């Protein structure tokens, strides 16, 4: 990895972790949504260091352009009630859950941090629209069609669940 890629990785990693921490610690959901936006944009930059150009664009389009906007719309619809009071009660179970999570993360992170697979050279079309598009439409054509039906079902289900009751 060249020096520029390493620099970009470090910067995006710091912003991604900061955005994730803001997301889970903010009292106000709108601030959490902005933290999620920072996290997603940083990850899109990190995807560029992994030669995943098309997926970086898709990350920006789908996550930052659709999912975060959807969250903001819901926060706007619900209004002040979107904010839930401070964390209280069941301190023991919450502390235990966060301690177990930290323990597992430390174990995994320290054990995989020294995995070393060679970063070989990649072809010019690796991760571009042409390369990934050929892979999707040649090897994964059926799953691609199935995912379109899944999205259609999700849209219909979301309308059916969220529409106001008229009866």
């Amino acid at each position, binding site marked *: 990895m060249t020096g520029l890629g390493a620099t970009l990785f470090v910067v995006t990693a710091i912003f991604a972790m900061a955005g994730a921490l803001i997301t889970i610690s903010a009292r106000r959901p709108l601030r959490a949504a902005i933290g999620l936006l920072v996290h997603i944009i940083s990850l899109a930059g990190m995807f560029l260091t992994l030669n995943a150009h098309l997926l970086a664009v898709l990350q920006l389009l789908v996550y930052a352009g659709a*999912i975060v906007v959807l969250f903001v719309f819901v926060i706007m619809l619900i209004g002040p009630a979107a904010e839930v009071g401070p964390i209280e*009660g069941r301190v023991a179970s919450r502390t235990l859950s966060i301690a177990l999570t930290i323990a597992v993360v430390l174990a995994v992170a320290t054990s995989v941090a020294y995995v070393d697979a060679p970063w070989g050279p990649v072809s010019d079309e690796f991760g571009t629209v042409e390369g990934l598009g050929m892979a999707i439409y040649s090897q994964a054509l059926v799953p691609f069609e199935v995912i379109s039906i899944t999205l259609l079902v999700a849209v219909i289900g979301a309308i059916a669940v969220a529409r106001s009751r008229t009866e």
Partner: protein
Amino acid sequence: MGIGTYLALASVLFGIGASGFLVRRNMLIQLMSIELMLNSVNVVLLAFNRAYPANHDGQVFAFFVIAVAAAEAAVGLAILIAYYRIKKTLDTDDATLLKY
């Protein structure tokens, strides 16, 4: 700097998302934590695909993960709105509709 750095970072991001899901009571924040976890999985898939670039399998998987995450966000937020319409709160400690 290699694949191990990416894997360690992804596990830390997954842990942040998991602890947010476990600790917070706000249903919106919990849905955002799920998105954090899905994103960290995408980092792992792309890092392994970059280490073994003979084919695009990891990137194809990440593509489908993004699509499923979009569907999940749509349905999850619809359920959230239906829940808010009944209970007038987003506190998951009050989510006892199926309990009694």
